């Protein structure tokens, strides 16, 4: 009937919803890890102008600009799939959750491309 996939000791079915679920979790875990780093790094900006300039020079390197593009992508996926979750939970989204997933991920992809252009225009 459906192709089965395995993640560690749990079995998932190859549905759109299962992929949305596991990717949403992984993206969420990546984002909270990033948030911890972010709060810590931003804290160093208060040590004075010299430290601020050193940190900013380090963070404006092309490598970090590319990581920023990736971060923007993970944020958009989590945010737009999150919209789908809210629509499914509070409105009648479950009737069309697969179509919603495709439409919202497509919208996220457009914003990702647009944002990436804006992020990279000063980078190189």
């Amino acid at each position, binding site marked *: 009937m459906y192709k089965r996939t395995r993640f560690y000791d749990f079995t998932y079915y190859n549905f759109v919803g299962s992929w949305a679920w596991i990717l949403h979790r992984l993206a969420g875990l990546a984002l909270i890890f990033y948030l911890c780093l972010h709060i810590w790094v931003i*804290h160093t900006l208060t040590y004075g102008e010299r430290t601020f300039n050193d940190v900013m020079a380090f963070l404006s390197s092309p490598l970090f600009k590319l990581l920023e593009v990736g971060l923007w992508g993970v944020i958009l996926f989590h945010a737009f799939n999150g919209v789908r979750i809210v629509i499914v939970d509070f409105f009648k989204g479950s009737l069309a959750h697969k179509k919603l997933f495709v439409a919202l991920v497509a919208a996220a992809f457009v914003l990702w491309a647009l944002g990436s252009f804006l992020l990279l225009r000063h980078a190189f």
Partner: protein
Amino acid sequence: MDKNFKQTSRAGAVAWLLQRISAVILFVLLLLHFVTYHFLTQTRSVSYRQVLERAQSWWFPLLQFAFLVTALYHGLNGIWSVLEDYTHSKFWRLVWYGLLVTVGVALLFVGTLTIVKLYTMKLA
């Protein structure tokens, strides 16, 4: 029903709702955060002066503090709901819960300190 689940059954419902409410708030705040801090910058990175000037407007501490609390709650509660799926013993749940609360309190402290310091620092 497993005796371990009795105490969390009601808290879980509140956490479920708060996770969605904080999600909607974060959707707006995080996208605005990215637009203002990452996309609308005219140069490769923002200057020390620009950051301090913005950090010292009246709305900055209020908005950033709300952002900090909402993001930390949403992220750590997200980790907690993942952990609840994979951790079943009372002991390990307590260990993880304690760890998450500790990380949350520490980052809330560091983040609040950053906001207050930026707000009260003198512009050179």
